[in-house]
């Protein structure tokens, strides 16, 4: 009945249509889910849109959400291209936050702002990179499954954070709440646009996206990564050092996730606490995949998914629509994208007649 036949080339219009239709269908599913809880989906979507883009301030808040998504997702794009599934951006983000907090708490008096911030950036990247290095080395040398390894490390990172927050780094004046003291101005990333919360991290993100794009498309490292991702045997035969590439790519990916963690607590939260939005690490996976593993596209996709998240956060309060709607919509879009991918390589026949 349903049959697939191999194509002889990949038609361009499908490459654009399939992602677009996936987005539409995913949004549709979200709307149906909302209908089941007796709320008008159109009202909800309009509210989300307004909550994301409706005023200059919410627009800026969308960008604020997009910053860590962008930073993390472009790092993920690099490793996903290599078929290395880094699900650990959550933990790498946390580690970056932890490492940079060390300097924020201890060196705020002794360093000038630019130096302190630079140290914090480096510390954040180092923290994330180290946390990514562990599963990378395990995979490179002992073939340990990276999905599980990175995932478990997420939980270990989270509990490490909790330990620090309820223990040695707790602010003695916080009435027992697990928070550090508020960062000095010295340790806060400067704002880019006044009257908004957009901070320097935005520049980091854009630069990172461009660098990653250049790496993948134009460097030998990027070429090697693509070969490894497509066919590991050929890569070995071509003399490509797979272990080295896994480790290097993961250091970059973890470093970017760690930098995102630093940017979030230094630029927005201004302290270390348990709730520092590490879930961005999972959302970034969706951003990476929806961007078709293209770092430049990721800028657009992280902006829109950031908007979805920001808008949904608004209506969580105003309309009592739970934030889970975001995950629902995102994963639905992803389902359609994954399912539709077959059409780029295969024609669809139903009862003998060609459909697509």
């Amino acid at each position: 009945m349903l049959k697939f036949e191999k194509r002889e080339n990949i038609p361009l219009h499908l490459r654009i249509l399939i992602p677009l239709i996936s987005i539409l269908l995913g949004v549709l599913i979200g709307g149906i889910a909302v209908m089941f809880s007796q709320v008008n989906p159109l009202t909800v979507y309009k509210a989300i849109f307004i909550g994301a883009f409706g005023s200059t301030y919410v627009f800026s808040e969308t960008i604020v959400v997009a910053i860590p998504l962008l930073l993390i997702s472009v790092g993920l794009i690099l490793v996903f291209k290599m078929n290395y599934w880094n699900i650990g951006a959550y933990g790498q983000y946390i580690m970056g936050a932890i490492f940079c907090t060390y300097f924020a708490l201890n060196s705020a008096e002794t360093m000038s702002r630019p130096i302190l911030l630079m140290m914090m950036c480096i510390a954040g990247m180092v923290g994330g990179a180290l946390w990514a290095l562990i599963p990378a080395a395990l995979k490179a040398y002992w073939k340990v499954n990276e999905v599980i390894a990175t995932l478990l490390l997420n939980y270990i990172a989270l509990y490490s954070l909790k330990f620090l927050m309820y223990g040695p780094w707790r602010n003695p004046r916080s009435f027992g709440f697990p928070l550090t003291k508020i960062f000095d101005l010295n340790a806060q990333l400067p704002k880019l646009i006044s009257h908004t919360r957009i901070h320097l991290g935005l520049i980091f993100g854009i630069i990172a996206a461009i660098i990653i794009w250049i790496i993948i498309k134009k460097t030998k490292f990027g070429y090697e990564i693509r070969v490894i991702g497509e066919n590991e045997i050929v890569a070995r035969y071509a003399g490509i050092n797979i272990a080295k590439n896994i480790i290097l790519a993961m250091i970059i990916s973890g470093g970017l996730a760690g930098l995102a963690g630093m940017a979030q607590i230094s630029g927005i939260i201004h302290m270390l606490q348990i709730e520092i939005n590490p879930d961005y690490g999972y959302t970034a996976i969706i951003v990476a995949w929806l961007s078709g593993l293209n770092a430049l596209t990721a800028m657009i996709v992280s902006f829109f998914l950031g908007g979805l998240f920001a808008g949904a956060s608004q209506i969580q309060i105003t309309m009592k629509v739970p934030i889970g709607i975001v995950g629902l919509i995102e994963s639905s879009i992803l389902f359609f994208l994954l399912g539709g991918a077959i059409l780029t390589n295969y024609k669809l026949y139903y009862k003998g007649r060609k459909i697509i």
Partner: protein
Amino acid sequence: MRPDAYAITIILLAATVESGTILLFPIIGEIFTERSGILNLGIEGMMIIGALVGFATAFMTGQIYWAFFMGMLAGGLASLIHAFISITLRGNQVVSGLALSIFGLGVTNFYGQEFVNLQLAHTIPQVIIPGLSQIPFFGPILFKQDYMVYLSYILVIITWFILFKTKAGIQLRAVGQNAQAADAMGVNVYKVRYFWTFFGGLMAGAGGAYLTLNCAPFWLDGITAGRGWVAIALVIFARWNPPYALIGAYLFGAINALQFQLQSMGTTIPSALLSMQPYFLTFILIIVATLLVKAKHIGVPKELGIPYAREEK
């Protein structure tokens, strides 16, 4: 042994069985799914869907066993999404499974709001098996549990039997090891994969339902706390063999029960570090298991994660 130390040991081990049973169901389910060649990373999502559906059904109908069944079914239905994408549409199984987990977490957050902070009037009743529960030491640990735990014991035995002693088991193993050969021999590869992926979903739902109906009789957003991922890890530890799944599940259950006990007894060890231990242990287990698998040539099912298509010329 001093009498109260003995008593505590019994309690701990019994708690181990309970806690381990939450994992035992999904581990066995995923063993069979992966044996058919399908990698399903959506266990966390299916488990939590089962948890919510089970809880909600119990809350609304008061029928515990019916609720367990509904939770199971919900997990199974959720798995069909992944099955359709992976088997018929030959999509990327890693990302599809992840999407399923995110979907599950999102959906349960969305519909679970009204159940937060509610408590079940009745939880799963304890069913003491006469005679067997008198056995010194093991009796109270193994046979003073509930029907779901007893179900899990039977499940381990039956699934082991099916895998190695029946025609269905041969078909399953063939599909996961050499799908083309199985197809050439007249086995319907798609049907086998759909069946066992659905089974995996049922089992994941069962684990989640058991969690909310018994061990923590209330609903919280994200109550599965990563157990789905631990289950996937323990499948590797079990080397895709049901009896070893028991060992892995109970090991995790033991650490879990132990750290829980320590926390409630008020130790000086920071609670965060204690809570970390089960995950840390699983992390070490994975490394060990991977090295062992490499050394003994006991295979990952060769077809794992690779979509099957017949007319590939």
